[in-house]
């Protein structure tokens, strides 16, 4: 805490978040119980379904299957996305050549293309990783690209004035200056990647958390359906937090400049 001496103590942000979550769960419990269990569910029913699903071993297996494809697709998106964004942002000729594909690709209606991808890559792990990659790579490229474009010209001139080679300017000036944008892209990509993962598993419907969702929905087991839905959301939240922590590690100056203690 960096608060001034004598300043009133602020309520910890974690406590505020916890309080809203508790209020939300209580409200959901009260209203959820009044609804036909086919059309809705409520926290305690979902918790019971979670225990059943976890004890059967299905949840763990599905989670590991989903995570494996997610991490593969997401890692590929990071490895491709950041350098591509740097190059597109830095070199106007490259921007002119492929900028259109990136902007248009971001809006690609991937749901429509998944059946085609299934034909190409089958029903297994590969197609899921490909769909997750395609969903996650665009926000990473676009954010990195925009980030490069916002690097102050004067900072680049510092490199030029000291006769830094082009590659050094990219690595030692543009990349660090772009870190906050890259991190924002990585966070957006988590959400998109998770959506991609579930979409892919809907179509293949034989593995992963998406398969549990679609199979329990088909059985009108709404409470069980909510288990992977919530799990995926919590997973995405945790990953986003992890990226925030990573940002504070690799770019502490940025966090200090913005004057925010935690996100």
């Amino acid at each position, binding site marked *: 805490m960096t608060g001034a001496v004598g300043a009133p103590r602020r309520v910890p942000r974690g406590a505020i978040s916890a309080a809203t979550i508790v209020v939300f769960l209580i409200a959901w419990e009260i209203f959820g119980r009044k609804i036909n269990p086919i059309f809705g569910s409520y926290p305690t029913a979902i918790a019971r379904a979670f225990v059943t699903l976890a004890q059967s071993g299905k949840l763990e297996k599905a989670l590991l299957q989903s995570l494996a494809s997610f991490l593969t697709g997401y890692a590929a998106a990071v490895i491709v996305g950041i350098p591509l964004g740097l190059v597109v942002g830095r070199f106007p000729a490259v921007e002119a050549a492929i900028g259109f594909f990136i902007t248009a690709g971001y809006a690609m209606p991937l749901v429509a293309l998944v059946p085609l991808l299934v034909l190409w890559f089958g029903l297994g792990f590969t197609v899921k990783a490909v769909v997750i990659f395609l969903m996650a790579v665009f926000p990473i490229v676009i954010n990195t690209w925009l980030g490069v474009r916002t690097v102050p010209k004067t900072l680049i*001139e*510092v490199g030029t*004035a000291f006769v830094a080679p082009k590659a050094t300017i990219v690595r030692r000036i543009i990349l*660090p200056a772009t870190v906050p944008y890259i991190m924002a892209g990585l966070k957006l990509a988590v959400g998109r990647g998770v959506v991609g993962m579930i979409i892919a598993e809907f179509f293949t419907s034989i593995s992963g958390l998406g398969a549990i969702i679609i199979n329990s929905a088909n059985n009108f087991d709404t409470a069980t359906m909510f288990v992977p839905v919530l799990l995926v959301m919590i997973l995405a939240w945790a990953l986003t937090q992890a990226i925030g922590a990573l940002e504070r590690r690799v770019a502490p100056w*940025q966090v200090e400049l913005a004057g925010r203690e935690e996100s």
Partner: protein
Amino acid sequence: MGEVQLIDLGKQFRLQLDRQEQIVTALDGVNLTVADGEIVMLTGPSGCGKTTALRIVMGLERASRGRVLVDGRETAGCGHDRGMVFQHAELLPWLTARENVTFGLQMKGMREPELRATAGTYLELGGLTGAAGRRPHQLSGGMKQRVGIARALAIDPDVLLMDEPFGALDAQTRETLQAQLLEIHARTRKTILFVTHDLDEAVLLGDRVVVMGHGSVREIVDVPLPRPRTDVEAIREDPLFAQTRHRIWRSLHDGPRRPADAVVPA
């Protein structure tokens, strides 16, 4: 050695104004020779081309015509023979003060162990030893600019180019830095080309003051004050100080009252 010659420097910009392309002349035949070890101040109204001239000497911009010679060699782009001090220091925010100084040295190809020793020497010269581990946002404006100066000096350039480096500082800090710069100059005898708006600063620091207007040299005023000028208070009380300042002021105000840029439709 660091003699700088600006020979018939000209610079024109294309400017998009109201959907009409216009050509703006920023420099129109600037000739100037700065002797080795001399401090020459460039001053003039906004848009007179003083910063453009400095940036061309550095190599950050290309002249439309003319040449820049450093020690008789024509410059092509930036080089380690010239060190730039930017208007707002322009430290890399993710690096500490020491790392910012080291950055310039690394670009010059210096490796450990000299790297650490040299950076340390110039941080000390700037009175920054205690702040070496701080990042720019943890430094005051004056300290930032001292790091900027240390970074430029560390690569041991023949010529130091300074673009209104103290313009954004408060009066007291500015005076401290001016005195420090005079001390550094007395010790290193670097050639300095210095852009300023501040007439006091021009007289205090300069051997000569170049008054510019409309992209050319209007007048060059000699500053007859003796060196070393490290006793800033005594210098300011010298009647020659006020006289020289007044001459520059007159020169600035004598010129025809045209807009600073000569705008010629393309």
